[in-house]
């Protein structure tokens, strides 16, 4: 399972796939590109403390799916294992950042950074 990320002319669309939609309680999210500050290929991110789950699924060492709150910041996670994760930084959104397992992380990071308009 992973996340489908689609870039349109003006938005970034996030869709958890399969059962991840259920675990994360999220069918799809869309953000204006002007609210996207950048993306990073960050495999080490999933090893850090993620914060308090609220709501979502957390299977330590294997899966984190849903909303997590750490030091007052809300982040959305849909990460499986400690494999390749992409971190997308947002501005003026419900979530400060998104942590996602995607099929082609490096290509996605380049594509997002090419169109990211946030500061």
């Amino acid at each position, binding site marked *: 399972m992973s996340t489908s990320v689609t870039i349109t002319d003006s938005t970034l669309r996030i869709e958890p796939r399969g059962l991840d939609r259920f675990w994360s309680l999220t069918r799809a999210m869309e953000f204006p590109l002007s609210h996207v*500050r*950048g*993306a*990073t*290929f*960050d*495999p*080490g*991110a999933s090893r*850090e403390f993620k914060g308090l789950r609220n709501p979502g699924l957390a299977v330590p060492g294997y899966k984190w799916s849903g909303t997590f709150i*750490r*030091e007052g*910041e809300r982040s959305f996670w849909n990460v499986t294992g400690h494999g390749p994760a992409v*971190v997308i*930084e947002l501005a003026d959104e419900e979530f*400060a*950042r998104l942590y996602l397992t995607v099929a082609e992380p490096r290509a996605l*990071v*380049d594509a997002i*950074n*090419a169109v*990211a308009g*946030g*500061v």
Partner: protein
Amino acid sequence: MAAARRAFLATGYEGTSVDDLVTATGLHRGSLYGAFGSKRGLFVAALRQALGDATQHCTGPHCTGPAAGGRALDDETLDLVLVALLELAPRDAEVRSLVAGCLAPLTADHEGDSGGDYGGSAGPAANSAAGTPAGKGPATGTDHTPSRTAAQLLGARLLTRAHLPHLAEPTTPTTPETTTPTTPETTTEEAVP
């Protein structure tokens, strides 16, 4: 920022993980993302700062014009430019533009310099390439020969960094001074009017 720059210089852009940057800067991962948006954002900020520092060197009375800005690039800045050129510029328009803006004056200076010597002996003549009759010699912030194009300068730095400095020196006896790297913070010297 300096710590991040050193990390990028040591292991390159792709070779430097966010974990490495967290360790190098002492910032939390969330703070790093919050401040710079991404690893790329941090690299661009470090590159901008390095190029900005270099540009600041040419805002003084001894150093005016874009040509002088090109000369103010020290070895560390050149190394960061090399990393940017090798890893990011092929696929990142903003980085490409930043680097181009920094290197273009070098080549422009080369074209307008007509191969003049560099240093106190030919200071006013070389400075005139900047288009300002300052009457003083250019800043000697670096020891690179200004008559080199961007390609020559970067190639020479690349070879010097690879411990092949003898290949970086010009074979033609047009420049009497060698390009031995020293500290970039040498003081400026005034040419005799």
